[in-house]
């Protein structure tokens, strides 16, 4: 069992948990992910690593309850435990492998969307620790969904924007990036975008126009996370890659986003039924005849 040593509600619908997993904490690097399973009946859920402490042997994960499993997960408290917690999985971010001196010559910008803000944090922190101050743009739907603002301020130059203008400025992350490059004389060698697929797709369209090399962190459906099933396959530059072992980070300008977004919808019906069963509990009548309700 993997004990939850801290459970915190970061925003309206975003949860943070710090979990004891010494083997993962000893070896993980920014960009990698873990797979968690709550209990015997639970499913395996991939979550990007948001922070880690080698000393405490802990990993921090941040998630948004969007399905039945993550809704149940959000109810876990400090002192509870995950039955299974495995990692680190996937490849570390590209810059972890680069010579820090070479890296210092590069200008890096991050564009984070929604809960994708959390996995940007260990990357910005890692760069800061290696003497590199990156620019980070956080985009959220509204003020209540901005997370980790204070933490980010300590490790990077932070720009915040909200879709509805309820905090700092109004607009999307892409609007901020365009403004920085076209109006404020900023130049970037690399852009890292992490968030919903649709947001990463739009960042890539913009950076292609601006001529900025762009890395995205893909979040397809996964089962084992070790390369044995291919559920997470994505097409990159016309080639089939498994996001769990070859990624999750890829050259965003080579990704077939339309295909990836359609593949994400694969279990939409099953997921919807599971949410109904969970939310309506015993009051759900299952009149649809599909969900195993009492009809």
């Amino acid at each position, binding site marked *: 069992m993997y004990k939850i040593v801290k459970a915190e509600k970061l925003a309206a619908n975003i949860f943070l948990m710090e979990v004891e997993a010494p083997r993962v904490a000893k070896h993980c690097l920014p960009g990698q992910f873990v797979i968690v399973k709550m209990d015997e009946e*639970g499913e395996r859920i991939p979550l990007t690593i948001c922070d880690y402490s080698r000393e405490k042997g802990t990993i921090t994960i941040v998630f948004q309850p969007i399905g039945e499993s993550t809704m149940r997960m959000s109810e876990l408290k400090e002192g509870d435990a995950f039955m299974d917690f*495995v*990692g680190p999985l996937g490849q570390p971010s590209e810059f972890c492998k680069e010579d820090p001196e070479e890296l210092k010559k590069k200008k890096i910008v991050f564009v984070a969307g929604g809960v994708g803000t959390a996995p940007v944090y260990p990357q910005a922190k890692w760069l800061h620790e290696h003497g590199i101050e990156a620019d980070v743009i956080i985009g959220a739907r509204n003020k209540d969904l901005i997370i980790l603002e204070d933490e980010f301020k300590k490790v990077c130059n932070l720009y915040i924007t909200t879709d509805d203008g309820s905090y700092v400025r109004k607009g999307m992350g892409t609007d901020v990036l365009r403004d920085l490059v076209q109006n404020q004389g900023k130049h970037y060698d690399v852009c890292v975008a992490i968030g919903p697929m649709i947001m990463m797709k739009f960042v890539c369209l913009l950076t292609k126009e601006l001529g900025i090399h762009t890395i995205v962190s893909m979040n397809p459906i996964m089962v084992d996370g070790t*390369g*044995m099933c291919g*559920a997470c396959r994505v097409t990159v530059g016309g080639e089939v890659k498994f996001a769990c072992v070859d990624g999750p980070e890829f050259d965003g300008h080579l990704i077939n986003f339309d295909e990836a977004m359609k593949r994400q919808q694969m279990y939409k019906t099953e997921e919807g039924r599971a949410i109904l069963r969970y939310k309506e509990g015993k009051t759900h009548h299952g009149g649809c005849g599909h969900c195993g309700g009492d009809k």
Partner: protein
Amino acid sequence: MAKGLIRVPVREQDPKVRATNFNEVCLGYNKEEAMEEASRCLNCKNAKCITGCPVNINIPGFIAQVKEGNIEEAYKIISESSALPAVCGRVCPQESQCEGKCIRGIKGDPVSIGKLERFVADWAKENGIKPEAPTEKNGHKVAVIGSGPAGLTCAGDLARLGYDVTIFEALHKAGGVLSYGIPEFRLPKDKVVAAEIENVKSLGVKIETNVIIGKSVTIDELMQDEGYEAVFIGSGAGLPMFMGIPGEQANGVFSANEYLTRNNLMKAYREDYDTPIARGKKVAVVGGGNVAMDAARTALRLGAEVHIIYRRSEAELPARVEEVHHAKEEGVIFDLLTNPVEILTDENDWVTGIRCIRMELGEPDASGRRRPVEIPGSEFEFDVDTVIMSLGTSPNPLISSTTYGLDTNKRKCIIADEEFGKTSKEGVYAGGDAVTGAATVILAMGAGKAGAKGIHEYIMGKQE
């Protein structure tokens, strides 16, 4: 035919009933049936069946005990050679191994060695008989990577010799292909797989799940920091292959590994488990091996009409004869000499059909099987909503790419000698599918035994 020439039939679930449930198809012998079948054994002096068994079980020896009704004694004889008899009795391709060599098979049916082994193992379990743990530990630590048949066998053998053995498993449950690959209706998970793993644990073997060697910890760290003197790699061949045809990325196309993992390991067929699975109405399974049969029979039980699409003819099907027979009885449709060329989709990228081409058999190829050749202009389409690719698997390069000094061949298989499983790296041994590419459970067990022998000689050699 005279009575002695025909084997005692084994009881099975009715095909119509079993096609709708995940309970075990074969019900096995009872004691009377087992004793009667055992009496057909001629107790050969120079028993060929033993040479046909990759772990060389003393077959006439245990059968002689069954014949007398001494089942506990029979179990002890099997346990000297095999750590997983309840598994092997169920999934070994006996027709090409022990039973293929049985003298009775020349004129009449060979003795049902597999079903007898299964009976003995199940009886021992029901009567609470476990393998005996070693009385003395020798103080040496060995790590085993992978808890599939190769790793479990190697760990069991080393534990019997007094070693302190820890198995590291990447998934959340031990068993490898026995847990995620072979379905419940052929190999019950709780009754058989979990029980056999408990038996290995009762020998003193520790199992640490959720550890991915090469990611969570490396082999070099295990040897340098954690005090393991030798390592056995039994990580299998779990990387699925795809065809590379148009439409293969569509929604509704799965590798057999994904489909079976969802159903067997994650129990997606059960309402009380969270993992979903696509319940297709009309399913095409591409391939002709045991995995293809398992995927097809699983899809059938989830309510689909199922077609096996295979490019050669029935005679070349690599699956066990018994599995093909069971699949047909249950209503799986075989489209032989047929090969997919494209998967058809709708505007939302969901599978709507499959375009295939008819094949004919040409000259034999390197494997000795007649090579399938496309018949020009014979393309045709039919409707399906799910396609399961079962084209084989290859070893995952994760371990070899993170272990310094471990040589692999061009198929990414670890290079290890057959007799002792010795690799190019000192103290590191390997066996099973990680070395040979996808093969059988019993061959992996044989390799696990060889690795245990190699490790024992290596560690004892260092002492002198």
